[in-house]
């Protein structure tokens, strides 16, 4: 079971318009999919008789402010423990409606991971049982990992980026 086989199987099953951006990063297969495909795709991979991607290693949010219409990304790290193969699935959603269907129905572990992505990026996981902030305080009115929020106080004069090579 090689990365090529997995990619070919997924393209054959879901079509080239749903599975794209296939590449290998340091031996790790990356595919990109669309928002409406993610749940059937993860179910398919979970129930596949040979692939058996039944372990969700991690779920990460990411923000690309310059990619118009694809500002937010969600990155799913899957692991097939039986075959010892890892797979990364990405999807992108626009800033205006950053809505992604939840996968807590398939993976119980996605609960806190999705809450974390919501907390830091404001990605809405539709159907999540308890989508509230997890690490930040509940009355916070912004999502701090978005790129427009500077880490340091922007009004300070002594921390000019040019002086620090940034």
């Amino acid at each position: 079971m090689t990365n090529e086989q997995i990619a070919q199987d997924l393209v054959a099953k879901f079509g080239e318009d749903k599975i794209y951006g296939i590449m290998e990063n340091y031996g790790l297969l990356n595919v990109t999919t669309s928002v409406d495909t993610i749940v059937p795709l993860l179910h398919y991979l979970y129930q596949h008789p040979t692939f058996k991607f039944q372990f969700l290693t991690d779920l990460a949010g990411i923000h690309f402010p310059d990619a118009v219409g694809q500002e937010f990304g969600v990155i799913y790290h899957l692991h097939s423990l039986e075959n010892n193969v890892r797979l990364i699935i990405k999807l992108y959603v626009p800033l205006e409606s950053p809505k992604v269907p939840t996968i807590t129905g398939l993976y119980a572990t996605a609960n806190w991971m999705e809450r974390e992505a919501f907390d830091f990026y404001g990605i809405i996981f539709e159907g999540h049982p308890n989508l509230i902030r997890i690490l930040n305080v509940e009355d916070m009115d912004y999502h701090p990992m978005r790129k427009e929020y500077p880490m340091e106080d922007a009004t300070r004069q002594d921390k000019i980026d040019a002086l620090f090579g940034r």
Partner: protein
Amino acid sequence: MSDVALVSSPNVGIAKSGENKKYVNELTTLNLGPTHPATHGIFQNILTMDGETIIDSEQTVGYIHRAFEKIAERRPFYQITTLTDRMNYCSSPINNMGWHMTVEKLLGIEVPKRAQYMRVIMMELARIADHIICNSVLAVDTGAMTGFLYVMQWREHIYEIYEELCGARLTTNMGRFGGMERDFSAEAIRKIKHFLSEFPKGLREFESLVKRNRIFMDRTTGVGAISSERALNYGFTGPNLRATGVDYDVRVMNPYSSYEDFEFEIPVGTTGDTYDRFLVRGEEMWQSLRIIQQAMDNLPEGPYHADAPHYYLPPKQEVYNNMEALIYHFKIVMGEIDAPVGEVYHSVEGGNGELGFYLVSDGGRTPYRLKFRRPCFIYYQAFPEMIKGSTLSDAIITMSSMNVIAGELDT
């Protein structure tokens, strides 16, 4: 929270005998934490109790959230090592080296064999330090203080070895991209050998106090059990997953840093309860000792770091006397070296599970995005399910045996 629904539920408390009728439907909300001696860290459990039985619980985490992922987007790679120290602070060398290996993967640096073996030795020492704390504190939470005091001196010996290698004890910042910052000194080798010869006695003494202790076994057997299917669905890794019978260990599945050279076994449990977690950790310490012994016996000669002048700080003596070394020193310290564009995921077997680093680099001096896969954060969400229907005292030892480290939970 669902306590409103629970209070109004007509079935709650019905099974109580006749004389308790007037207490039917009276539920208590109990705050366990955020600062409570038994949580070993700052996180809150809001328990809904029916008498002594836990009906529901809700976790509040984030009390020591320090925004490491955001800070990392602002820092050059070498400054992020100090952030990883402060995640699982019981085994910081593993975090440091996991991060170094992630960056080496991105940069394509080949680490010499001696440095890899040195890393293995330090990582296994860190694993022992992590597991003796977890196991002995579990004994403390069941009421046995003695064992904890006995094994503390062995953690002290491990910290002295850290000191020999990097000068620090808890937040080690050990190693560099490309290897270690200094070779084992004669004193370090003496201390490691002393540890290897003496620690088995200490561990055996601890085990003779606790392992087959009837009271301890009664207290922990069958408590906080989870099936392997639920554990996998909850993303368990590390000793907690292995206690349920799944032999997943990153050191064997995706060997890094020459782990494939060593012979060791993966202990697994059967029922996934507190006692199994205790036994798995106990046996893992013996296996770690085996690995350290093999690495010390076969420690290769050669350089202890890779030839990567763009990322590896030159020795101080050269900085003062050599123009190139001075330039590299300046460029590294000021973070003026751009990393290549790329995405890399690397994971190591941390003290309590698969510790992963997902690094997205856009070619700048800092990561574009860095996601830490913290095993604690992921498996702690199973805690309500594991303690449902048990008593408060069982919940405390379940939490203790899960080895939840607040620093890692909250980054």
